[in-house]
């Protein structure tokens, strides 16, 4: 269960069995079967492309219901910085945090603050050559999962530091426990998420045994709860302590900006990310130290659970960040040692592409696959339920589909059958034949 938990799921009632999602899935993880989309768990990386592309809104992200917070004595919200870009005409983070707190939280702890800690630790690793360059950011869980299943040669390039969400959860629990005297288990910390992948990463953590996050709540759900009263806040509490760098993490380019390394690139959008990973795998990217990769266009502000248009949100984040202090939370890396921010479990290769565990059998299947592929029409129409003719050929050799799943193949066979029937129909027993 833990291994294959996915936040991205299907609402069967709404699914029409069309081909939109199978075509856009970057890992070819969806097939249409019996009129409904079916997600192949091993292949899904929770990027949320299918959520965005489905015209019937049949794909959704499972997050925790808001009421989950009430099962804890002391409730703490951990807002992702992308939340700050969601509200029209609001540029004061304190107003947003006050509004959030009023939903029933006892306290808020900004993930942007933890992001500053992650930046500092990353700087330390790069400067000390403790990670293979170009170092890949580990903040977006979709990217980590993608590297695990498809780019095993890049595992050593991934920065082995927990995500800002996890770091925030650990910091919040420790600091609040110390200040209030409450045991950590009575303090519930809840991440306000812009995406499905963060939910998945709390159920099946990457780089560590367990997540410190007690619940993950959808940003859009929080947004609709806050929107009624947020304009009535005239005296916001002074809650924000995050600086310009941490806030910038909400958008693509923010991590690189925070790092201050000019040999850094920021790539957003899963299909762009794949192109860069391919090039990195071939050693083609050589004069770069740091690669910030985000599955969503625009970065976290483009997450499938956000409300605001990602371009507008990005602009708003930049304006808010500019007003925030340009200070570092902690100035020396030594101060961070007790925050337990490094990965404890390295990530491992989880191959999904191999046709068979035995290479000789895999070679046989590949030959068979080539033959099947060459006999298919090559239209990539998707009517068979697979995203392309090549994917259907692969499904056939894997035993998940048959050649007649292709409507053109089926038609060909029906035509052959009809011809045979005509021929048989024309045959007569010997006594009735016209000639010998």
């Amino acid at each position, binding site marked *: 269960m833990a291994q294959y938990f996915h936040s991205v799921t299907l609402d069967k009632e709404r699914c029409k069995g069309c081909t939109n999602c199978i075509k856009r899935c970057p890992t070819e993880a969806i097939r249409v079967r019996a009129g409904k989309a079916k997600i192949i768990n091993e292949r899904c990386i929770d990027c949320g492309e299918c959520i965005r592309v489905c015209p019937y809104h049949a794909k959704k992200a499972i997050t925790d219901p808001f009421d989950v917070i009430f099962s804890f004595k002391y409730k703490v919200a951990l807002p992702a910085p992308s939340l700050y870009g969601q509200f029209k005409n609001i540029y004061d983070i304190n107003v947003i945090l006050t509004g959030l707190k009023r939903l029933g939280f006892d306290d808020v702890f900004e993930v942007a603050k933890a992001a500053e800690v992650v930046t500092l630790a990353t700087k330390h690793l790069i400067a000390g050559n403790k990670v293979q360059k170009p170092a890949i950011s580990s903040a977006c869980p979709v990217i980590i999962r993608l590297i695990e299943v498809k780019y095993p040669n890049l595992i050593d390039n991934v920065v082995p530091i927990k995500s800002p969400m996890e770091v925030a959860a650990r910091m919040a629990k420790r600091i609040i426990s110390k200040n209030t005297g409450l045991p950590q288990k009575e303090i519930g910390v809840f991440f306000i998420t812009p995406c499905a992948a963060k939910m998945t990463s709390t159920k099946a953590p990457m780089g560590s045994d367990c997540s410190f996050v007690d619940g993950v709540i959808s940003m859009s759900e929080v947004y609709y709860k806050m929107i009624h009263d947020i304009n009535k806040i005239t005296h916001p509490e002074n809650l924000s302590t995050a600086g310009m760098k941490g806030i910038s993490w909400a958008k693509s380019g923010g991590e690189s900006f925070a790092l201050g390394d000019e040999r850094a690139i920021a790539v957003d959008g899963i299909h762009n990310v794949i192109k860069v990973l391919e090039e990195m*795998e071939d050693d083609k990217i050589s004069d770069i130290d740091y690669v910030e990769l985000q599955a969503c266009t625009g970065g976290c502000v483009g997450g499938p659970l956000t409300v605001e248009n990602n371009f507008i949100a990005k602009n708003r984040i930049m304006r808010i960040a500019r007003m925030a202090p340009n200070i570092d939370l902690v100035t020396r890396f030594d101060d961070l040692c007790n925050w337990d921010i490094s990965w404890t479990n390295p990530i491992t290769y989880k191959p999904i*592409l191999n046709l068979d565990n035995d290479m000789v059998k895999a*070679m046989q299947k590949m030959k068979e696959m080539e033959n099947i592929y060459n006999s298919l029409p090559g239209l990539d129409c998707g009517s068979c339920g697979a995203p392309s003719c090549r994917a259907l050929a692969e499904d056939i050799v894997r035993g998940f589909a048959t050649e007649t799943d292709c409507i053109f193949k089926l038609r060909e066979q029906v035509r052959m059958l009809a011809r045979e029937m005509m021929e048989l129909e024309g045959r007569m027993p010997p006594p009735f034949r016209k000639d010998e």
Partner: protein
Amino acid sequence: MMISLHYEVDGQDFALAGEASSNVKKVLKQLGVKPDIIRRVAIAMYEGEMNMVIHANGGIADVEITPSKIVIIMQDTGPGIEDIELAMKEGYSTAPDAIREMGFGAGMGLPNIKKYTDQLQIISEVGKGTRLEMTIFVK
């Protein structure tokens, strides 16, 4: 059991160089070949492709995959290599300035191919062309 792959490498298009090695990479992943082997094959083959694009106006690449080894044969009808020993030296390059300005032609092509393969055979004749045979053992 052997899988044979054949590619024509277009000499006119820098952007397309690397397409053959990308394709081979995908095939090897599907065959379940170990990641470090795939990496060596991909890098060696990409360097070979780039060499053919930069110096020889393209050529052909044949890849033979068996459970014990991967053999890549790259042939072109380019200018040939005058002094193979010199060409194997890191940093030595005959690439024209225009190519160097684009960040290619750093003189690492052949040395890298040598570094990432288990066996490398180069046959070259000036004015006729070059044939590279690279072998990488799977086990």
